[in-house]
């Protein structure tokens, strides 16, 4: 789960990181008042959960409260990568002497958190990692002992020569690590980490992604979730225990298992069409889940055919078949449905489906090709029937 910059700043500040005070504004008037309260020049920043907002014009400097209001007027309501800006952050403008980067991620290969710093801050760190990896210093953090003092100090020396700054940076890195652990983050990032003209070390941006698996022990953080970050259908799916990702194609997919669901999408592409979604109904297969899955896939107006690809293991094919029959009774289904079922209780499932006149296949390739055919026919109704 991603959290907004203003939320991450508050969490970082709570852990003693040097994040300048700020205000959040939802209207130009609030932005003006915030700038007045903070005093002096401010920066007005769009609060959206996508990267690249600076390039999109979502971050502006303002010399005074009046200008802050005008900049907020420009930014609020702006569309950044399909997301409408509903809030801006107003923070004191900082005279920057130098910009660095500091972040912690989970390194999958070494199975531990890794802290990374770079003197090339303020820019896309992934680009730095790609083009000049030598400009990034990394240190693996042993989860049993945490970030050791000497490691933090060495990272400080990687950024600064001045001993006072090195010590300040080392302290900052330890606090960032503490915040990372406290909230069960999967990523914590300060970019840029700046030294001001006054020689002060400041975190003037904050980025935090949380581990979805750990949210059960952080009910307070779950409340930070921004529903506008998700398609409403994705929110409904999550609440119903389904994994759903909306895509741009016209073939709706309902599959059990994430790997098989991805492979089904790929097979749709292989046969020349585009999947409308990723949807994993998960392991256990009560019929209600299938009804919910159908409702969610049908809510996408681009869908012109729905395919089921079920490989029964823990999932019982007859449960899925019963769910399909129930969904047909309860939902208005105006697109063709094609079904592949194999594995646990498949004979029973085929009998249930035959009873309502729905044929099913045992082959994944067949079901994908038939779904594409049906969608094509639906798109060109004169050739149908």
């Amino acid at each position, binding site marked *: 789960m991603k959290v907004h910059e203003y939320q991450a700043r508050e969490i970082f500040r709570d852990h003693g990181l040097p994040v300048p005070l700020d205000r959040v504004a939802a209207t130009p008037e609030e932005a003006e008042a915030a700038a007045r309260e903070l005093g002096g020049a401010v920066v007005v920043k769009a609060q959206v959960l996508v990267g690249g907002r600076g390039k999109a014009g979502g971050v502006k400097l303002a010399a005074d409260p009046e200008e802050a209001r005008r900049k907020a007027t420009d930014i609020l309501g702006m569309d950044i990568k399909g997301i409408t800006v509903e809030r801006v952050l107003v923070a004191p403008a900082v005279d920057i002497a130098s910009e660095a980067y500091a972040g912690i991620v*989970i390194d999958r290969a070494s*199975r531990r*958190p890794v802290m990374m710093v770079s003197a090339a801050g303020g820019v896309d760190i*992934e680009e730095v990692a790609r083009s000049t990896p030598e400009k990034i210093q990394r240190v693996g953090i042993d989860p049993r002992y945490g970030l050791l003092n000497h490691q933090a100090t060495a990272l400080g020396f990687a950024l600064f020569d001045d001993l006072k700054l090195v010590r300040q940076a080392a302290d900052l890195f330890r606090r960032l690590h503490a915040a990372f652990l406290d909230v069960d983050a999967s990523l914590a990032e300060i970019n840029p980490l700046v030294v001001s003209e006054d020689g002060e070390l400041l975190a003037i941006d904050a980025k935090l992604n949380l581990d979805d698996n750990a949210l059960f022990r952080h009910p307070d953080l779950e409340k930070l979730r921004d529903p506008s970050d998700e398609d409403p259908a994705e929110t409904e799916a999550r609440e119903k225990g389904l994994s759903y990702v909306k895509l741009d194609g016209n073939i709706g997919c309902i599959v059990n298992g994430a*790997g098989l669901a*991805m492979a089904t999408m790929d097979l749709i592409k292989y046969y020349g069409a585009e999947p409308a979604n*990723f949807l994993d109904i998960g392991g256990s297969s009560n019929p209600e889940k299938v009804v919910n899955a159908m409702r969610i896939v049908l809510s996408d107006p681009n869908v012109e055919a729905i395919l089921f690809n079920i*490989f029964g293991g823990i999932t019982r094919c007859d449960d899925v078949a019963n769910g399909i029959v129930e969904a047909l009774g309860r939902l208005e289904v105006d697109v063709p449905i094609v079904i592949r079922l194999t594995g646990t209780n498949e004979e029973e499932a085929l009998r249930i489906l035959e009873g309502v006149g729905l044929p099913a296949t045992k082959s994944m390739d067949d079901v994908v090709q038939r779904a594409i055919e049906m969608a094509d026919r639906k798109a060109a109704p004169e050739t149908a029937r």
Partner: protein
Amino acid sequence: MSVFIDESTRLVVQGITGRDGSFHARQMLEYGTRVVAGVVPGKGGQTFDDAVPIFHTVAEAVAETGATASVIYVPPAFAVDAVYEAADAGIELIVTITEGIPVLDMTRVMPYVQERGARVLGPNCPGLISPGKSKIGILPGQICTPGPVGVVSRSGTLTYEVIHHLTGDGVGQSTCVGIGGDPIIGTSFIDCLEAFEADPETEAVVMIGEIGGTDEQEAARHVESAMTKPVVGFIAGQTAPPGRRMGHAGAIISGSEGTAAEKIEAFRESGIAVARRPADLVGLVREALG
């Protein structure tokens, strides 16, 4: 031979009376797995299905039954403690089926387990099966048949799909291992490849990867430098958008890292034939077996 498990493997089921634990304990018993004990704190002294003694702790189960492997069907909030407990009891193979264990918990438990010389498979995995000998986890036994092909995969049902094609075409399996879909897992592709290379019964390997991370790329380099047996592969997620978690916690393209395209390229560069469809793997395996 087979890898990690065989007919002598003695299994304890942690969480044997739960919904999933009881269902799969029965399936494993039916398959012929030597399920020697169950563990449920508070239910020690009872017997599961008149066949399997239940203990309060894994340590008791090991002392009484000589269990060497465990399988964990415990809810995510308690699952990581079940791993610690199994490692402390001297279990050698800890198969963790549970999905949803916090990633930082996995970073902490892994060094603990390794210090005790144990292996974790998973979490968020379907387990493993050596057809005709033993199965641990949730893989459906009836789709497998004994033979010369090792299968290793990050997925569950996609693995079943591939095994189904292999068996349907008369190509049997030595062992099929589901390593799990989480970002941090106890047993990697490379661990499995090494085991298959050393297993005299395995003649070729099918490796099924997906988007997210760089495990497949590292595995490809390993295949090139250290494997004499042929490996064929498949990667799921060519149509997955970046930045979105595709079901599995580990199946996410971060920035530009972890795409299917880069993994397929890494496979090809290392001499691993890559199937475009799951169904095409059978032909590649047949070619590899010669």
